[in-house]
């Protein structure tokens, strides 16, 4: 019985559909996109007539009408900024609750979604458009480029997504492809695709790391390569860390130098943009020389600036250290050390910064692999996977096999706002894992099921994926029902949740859709918060557990009192009521020790009552789980 399918209906590819057409690999990036094709195991990026492989991920709706994508749209931005969308990938699968994280960052109006999904829309060119629709335009342009270059129809693709993309973002990416008329053979994680490009090229074996530092995101993955098998062991990252941080550091220095020289600037958005543009240029120049200089003109007043590598590097050292710290966490997750790593693959434009290369090589103790263009490597890997999936390239024992993992833990809310993890992070996919839950009160016939994603102990700190209610549970004593909840994650990393009451086989079907929700940034934050807050979480968890346990025992005692209250004298009853009230009061407070102390006092006091019930129970035949609960408590 499937209760909830976080899955889009109607997108399952038909068998044999599209055979005879070509399958491409697409890197649908935040800043730039690339389309590539592999033939007999050799991948190549597809270029435009001017020889460029990169397509800016920019879509424009000119006021004169029509639609432009890529370089043309980027040029339109200067003239009609309100009619152009860039960085739409940051909004994929994001809901109204994410607006605070993107508002002010992106230069267009964002409005909450309506109707079935909660995904945001953009007011652009006078019309509300969804990120899926806009991404589809980029994909259509890539498809057209591929068809022009290959002179054949292209209907199938492998599309890459960040390892950290959550369920909603993955589904939104699939939707965009469908709108663009592309059947998605598989969504592949970007670092995995990059390793694929290197692995096949070199026939390498052993443990490899992929260090992916883009403009605004960082990903670190560990993969084991063995005879064509790519096994992802662990992955981690930060979606708010990248080359943009380096640009900002230089820009701040430029503005500070002007101030020092007595220039009184009005530091507005335009000034910052200009400073950032020069900063970026200087950063790029420092990739192949030791010093650089530039001219910045703000408000008609020019200034001249010099920057040496020796000055630049200390400015970005802390950012690079942060990436290494994440890398160390990922290694620890996989139970490995840097010595185990055979080589490290560098992906993303920011890995051109010499200090990044040096620091990564220093940490791993081996030089980094850089011979594939870091801007193209992801698309090349996707192309290889597309070929492998469509029966091209080496097959059988020689063929490539990708074994990927879940980037974040998946779980359920349990009593007291706690998270019970069902699928831990870094679990190989596809996977199907089940856990049994039970009812909490006598006669309980319904159970709220809340699916969450994240590493923290408390529900409020994790991302909510879906909520639904299982009803029709036959009334039983608390703890007697056995509700088995199964999480299935498919090879694309998408989740389906189903539930079943095992004692009676109650079947009820409920379907849900993903709650397009929080941002990717939140996801990375959630993961690293969990490491920082593990101890505080543990304290909260213990408190919540103490509350749940105390409440459960109160309920059990209440049920017993209702049934067998007559076994107690009125003094005994009064004393018990006082002790019960103390437990209630302790539960309302924040002290775990107080709750436990009050609960123990109540236990001790109710012991004679339990014994008398037991005596009677022997006569009347024991019935009900509340009784058993009480016995267990007393027995401790």
């Amino acid at each position: 019985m499937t209760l909830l399918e976080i899955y889009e209906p109607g997108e399952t590819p038909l068998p044999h559909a599209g055979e005879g057409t070509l399958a491409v690999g697409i890197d649908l990036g935040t800043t730039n996109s690339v389309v590539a094709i592999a033939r007999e195991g050799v991948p190549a990026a597809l270029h435009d007539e001017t020889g460029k492989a990169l397509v800016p991920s920019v879509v424009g709706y000119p006021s004169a009408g029509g639609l432009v994508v890529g370089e043309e749209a980027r040029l339109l931005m200067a003239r009609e900024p309100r009619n152009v969308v860039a960085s739409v990938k940051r909004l994929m699968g994001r809901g109204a609750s994410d607006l605070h994280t993107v508002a002010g960052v992106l230069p267009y109006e964002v409005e909450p979604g309506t109707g079935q999904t909660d995904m945001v829309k953009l007011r652009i060119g006078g019309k509300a458009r969804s990120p899926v629709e806009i991404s589809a335009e980029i994909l259509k342009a890539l498809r057209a480029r591929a068809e022009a270059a290959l002179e054949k129809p292209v209907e199938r693709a492998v599309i890459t997504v960040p390892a950290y993309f959550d369920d909603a973002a993955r589904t939104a990416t699939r939707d965009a492809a469908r709108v663009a008329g592309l059947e998605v053979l598989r969504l592949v994680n970007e670092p995995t695709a990059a390793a694929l490009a290197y692995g096949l090229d070199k026939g390498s074996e052993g443990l490899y790391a992929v260090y992916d530092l883009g403009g605004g995101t960082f990903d670190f993955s560990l993969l084991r390569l063995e005879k064509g098998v790519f096994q992802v062991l662990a992955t981690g990252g930060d979606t708010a860390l990248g080359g943009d941080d380096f640009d900002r550091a230089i820009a701040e220095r430029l503005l500070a130098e002007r101030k020092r020289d007595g220039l009184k600037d009005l530091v507005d958005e335009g000034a910052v943009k200009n400073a950032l543009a020069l900063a970026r240029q200087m950063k790029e120049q420092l990739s192949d020389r030791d010093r650089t200089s530039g001219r910045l003109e703000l408000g008609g007043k020019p200034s001249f600036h010099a920057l040496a590598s020796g000055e630049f590097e200390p400015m970005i050292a802390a950012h690079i250290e942060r990436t290494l710290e994440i890398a160390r966490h990922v290694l620890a997750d996989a139970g490995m050390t840097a010595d185990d790593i055979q080589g490290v693959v560098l992906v993303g434009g920011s890995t051109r910064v010499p200090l990044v290369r040096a620091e990564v090589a220093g940490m791993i103790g081996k030089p980094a692999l850089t011979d594939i263009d870091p801007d193209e490597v992801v698309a090349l890997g996707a192309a290889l996977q597309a070929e492998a999936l469509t029966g091209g390239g080496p097959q059988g024992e020689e063929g490539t096999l990708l074994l990927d993992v879940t980037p974040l833990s998946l779980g359920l809310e349990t009593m007291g706002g706690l998270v019970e993890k069902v699928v831990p992070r870094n679990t190989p996919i596809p996977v199907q894992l089940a856990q049994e839950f039970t009812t909490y009160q006598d006669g309980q016939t319904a159970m709220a099921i809340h699916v969450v994603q994240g590493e923290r102990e408390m529900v409020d700190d994790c991302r909510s994926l879906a909520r639904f209610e299982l009803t029709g549970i036959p009334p039983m004593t608390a703890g007697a029902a056995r509700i088995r909840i199964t999480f299935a994650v498919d090879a694309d990393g998408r989740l389906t949740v189903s539930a079943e009451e095992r004692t009676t086989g109650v079947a009820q079907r409920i379907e849900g859709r993903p709650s397009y929700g929080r941002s990717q940034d939140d996801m990375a934050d959630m993961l690293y918060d969990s490491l920082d807050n593990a101890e505080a979480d543990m304290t909260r968890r213990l408190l919540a557990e103490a509350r749940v346990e105390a409440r459960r025992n109160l309920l059990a005692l209440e049920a017993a009192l209702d049934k067998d209250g007559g076994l107690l004298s009125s003094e005994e009853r009064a004393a018990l009521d006082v002790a019960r009230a103390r437990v209630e009061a302790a539960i309302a407070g924040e002290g775990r020790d107080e709750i436990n102390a009050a609960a123990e006092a109540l236990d001790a006091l109710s012991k004679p009552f339990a014994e008398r019930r037991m005596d009677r129970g022997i006569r009347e035949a024991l019935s009900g789980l509340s009784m058993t609960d009480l016995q267990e408590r007393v027995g401790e």
Partner: protein
Amino acid sequence: MDHFARLGLPAALDLEPAALDKAYFTLQRQWHPDRFVAKPPEQRAKASTEAAALNDAYRTLKDPLSRAFYLASLKGVEMPADGKTIDDPDLLVEAMDAREELHEASSVAEVDALASFAREDLQKALAGLPSLFLANDKAAIRKTLLRLRYLDKFAEEARSRRANLANLTDKRGKA
């Protein structure tokens, strides 16, 4: 089918990691959904189920501790559910003492020392398991597994305590 049988391996505590990997990779080559992209839906569904079962088996058997728990369950050793109170009085005392020490530790070095003791203990207890399985001494297996579960949790707690201490030191350093 139990996890060992699924991977075609003997149900034993001692398992060569390379043999496990080989069996797993070979079967994944056969069943991974990527091999069934163009196949009819029922075949794809079957592949997905098989691949998921393989992943579950691999994950369970790869880690020596989880493998020991799994093998014990196959042998009919009844374990208390995870998260339940420790019902072994000796272990209870040991656990309480160790947690107190961890709580009182005020430096990363102290925490590291405690964690390294725990790891050594864990290795020792793991090394003692095969002979217990051989003798089919269920009570002793149960006692050892309970202790292993506790040591594993303790190592985890030490890790988070360490992160917290390191964080504090960091912040103090910056202030």
